């Protein structure tokens, strides 16, 4: 009898213990948060905006014609004295449990980034087991995070995905923006001799972006675009870098994947376009006559993408000359980026950290005054070596042969 009972106990226990129903969460009880926006209001409280996916409205495709009537995401906002409080307060508006495991973007409002800094915002994200620290972080340029989170986007229906994909494609093709992860920011914040950079995102057109109409037009009245790189110091946003200087920063950080570099030729401005295919930037700290110096060497390889002028590309000598111009152009960009950072006395490149790694004894002397005394005066020697490997499907441009 007891033997039989024992045998029975095995399946019974398995059913009870192996099914794993303890604190289960059903999919239709979860609100998938795709993006979080963080601001501060006049009362000094944190305001969180939670972009929640409406699963039914994301799937659509051809059958639905113009898409469904209601938007693919819904945004809830809540305020609180800290981030966990904000999240818990938001539950008063949402019928489901906020679920952060699929959060792709954290947007931080420019105002809070400038005034209070981002330090206090990050711990809750770092600590929570659901939230990923590989989540991309951006700053809402000239806007509150709430505004940005509220803007609807065409093509990629979930705005958070649109931002993420846009950042990836622009980092890859123009090199003026960067996809920065929460963990990158954290690392830069805690490393002495290194300050974080974060890409800025802007929404044009204001409130109109909240309406479904926005994505029913061929040219949306309100669009989300990457705009500038935010430079931080001591956790606070202090300046923006745009265009060439932004790309200079990306060069030094060795994050350029592809980019276009245009140079003048035959006195015609920007008439030859060089498309970067791969590059490698080496930062070497040296100490010369007791002073710290940085050597930057950029090696870049690519093709000719466009010729708006005549040049004999069959001649290796011409190629050499073009390469020299490219070298100069890139050197100029890099120096602009460095100048921007030195102006702001913020070592966003981690030069200090590389001194720490290579000259630990000397670093002790610089450590405490690095950002304010040594870094702005730091001598940076930039050398660029570019290689034009191929010239596309044509050799000489047809402009060389026009009558």
């Amino acid at each position, binding site marked *: 009898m007891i033997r039989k009972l024992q045998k029975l106990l095995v399946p019974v226990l398995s059913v009870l213990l192996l099914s794993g129903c303890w604190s289960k969460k059903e999919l239709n009880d979860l609100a998938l948060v795709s993006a979080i926006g963080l601001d501060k209001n006049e009362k000094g409280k944190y305001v969180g905006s939670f972009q929640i996916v409406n699963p039914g409205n994301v799937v659509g495709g051809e059958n639905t014609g113009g898409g469904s009537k209601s938007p693919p995401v819904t945004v809830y906002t809540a305020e609180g004295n800290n981030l966990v409080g904000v999240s818990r307060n938001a539950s008063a508006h949402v019928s489901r449990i906020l679920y952060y495991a699929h959060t792709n973007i954290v947007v931080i409002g420019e105002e809070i980034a400038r005034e209070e800094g981002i330090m206090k915002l990050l711990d809750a994200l770092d600590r929570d*087991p659901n939230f990923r620290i590989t989540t991309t972080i951006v700053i809402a340029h000239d806007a509150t995070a709430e505004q940005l989170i509220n803007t609807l986007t065409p093509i990629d229906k979930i705005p958070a995905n649109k931002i993420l994909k846009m950042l990836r494609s622009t980092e890859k093709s123009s090199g003026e923006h960067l996809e920065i992860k929460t963990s990158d920011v954290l*690392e830069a914040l805690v490393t002495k001799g290194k300050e974080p950079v974060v890409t800025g995102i802007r929404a044009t057109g204001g409130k109109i972006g909240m309406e479904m109409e926005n994505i029913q037009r061929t040219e949306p009245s309100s669009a989300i675009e990457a705009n500038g790189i935010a430079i931080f110091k001591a956790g606070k946003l202090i300046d923006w870098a745009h265009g060439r200087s932004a790309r200079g920063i990306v060069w030094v950080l060795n994050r350029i994947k592809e980019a276009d570099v245009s140079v003048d030729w035959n006195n015609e401005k920007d008439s030859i376009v060089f498309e970067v295919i791969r590059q490698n930037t080496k930062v070497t700290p040296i100490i010369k006559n007791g002073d710290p110096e940085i050597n930057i060497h950029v090696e870049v390889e690519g093709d000719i993408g466009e010729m708006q002028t005549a040049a004999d590309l069959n001649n290796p000598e011409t190629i050499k000359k073009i390469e020299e111009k490219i070298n100069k152009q890139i050197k100029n960009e890099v120096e602009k980026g460095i100048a921007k950072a030195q102006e702001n006395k913020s070592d966003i490149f981690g030069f200090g950290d590389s001194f720490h790694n290579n000259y630990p004894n000397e670093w002790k002397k610089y450590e405490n005054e690095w950002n304010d005394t040594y870094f702005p005066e730091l001598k940076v020697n930039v050398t660029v070596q570019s290689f034009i490997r191929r010239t596309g499907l044509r050799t000489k441009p047809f402009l060389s042969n026009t009558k």
Partner: protein
Amino acid sequence: MEKAKIDAVQLFVLIVLFELGSAMLIPLAIDADENAWLAILLGMAFGFFLFLIYHALYKYYPDMLPTQYMQKILGKYIGWALGFAYSIYFMYASARVLRDFGEMLLSVAYRETPLFIVNLLLMFLIMYTVYQGIEVLARTGEILFSLLYLFAITGFILIVASGLIDITHLKPVLEEGILPVLKVVVTETIYVPFGEMIVFTMIFPYLNNPKVARKIGISAIALSGINLTIVMAVNITVLGVDLTKRSQFPLLTTIQSIQIANFLERLDVFFVLALIMTIFIKITLYFYAGVIGMGNLFKVEKVNQLVYPLGLVVLLISVSIASSISEHIKEGLKVVPILLHLPFQIIIPLILLGIAFLKSKKKSKGSSASDA
């Protein structure tokens, strides 16, 4: 002592899994900052010496459990008391690792599940395994070993493939000189995990071929030490020293950083599997050592009758030894090494070996005298 035998390969996998258990998951030796890997390697070097001490004792008494030869060496009463203390030590250690396990699972995945339930489920499994005996445990070890290395190699390739490794995080090497590293070695890595090899003194008598024990032990310690070194070096190169330091489980954060082709991400399950497999072996071995020690001291004929009562004791201890994870870790890193590991892993075995050596010398002198 049950009548069972394990072979050399089984001993090897048990040692490796045991050494990796929990040591692989926590920020081991992180007080040495960038040089954590060095501290682990040095700890391993000392680990070889410790192992040689344990092995020398085993060679004097190849068929006896430590609880038996302690009585031979120190006399009946003191030896018995010391054997009892060792059995308690092993059971306490198993309760500590069980608590580690519960804390990890609760922090990582099961926030709302009570600690007791999580520990209870694993403890049932462990009690069952120990009830079945060392042979079953050894065979389980073989399966888990191959699984673990499959995961580990895949994980390692994925980490390298996603381009996360940044070697500069390991610099500067020896910024403050060798002293801080040695301090970490002396206060931490000698004991956890290398000194924990003491538990295998309870396992050696089951080995079917006593001659290979030394070779197997040294190679298993070398493999696990090098693996731990790689794990810590990878953690630091991927996360940087600061994040590694702040992480309860740096390996988890490292694995979470893997992002390949937009779909190979959130591979937390690798971590959880590694956690469960290695920790299961670790607790089971500790618990097994405690149970056969007790059985031997109290002359219980069927040792596995002790499994369930002692298992419940371990379970209850595991829940009640600390009120928070901070308290638990603090005890584990600051109190237990000095108060328990140092005497039980180093001082007492050294004394035992000394006395055993003198005794054997006297004996051989006596016997050679009688020969003449």
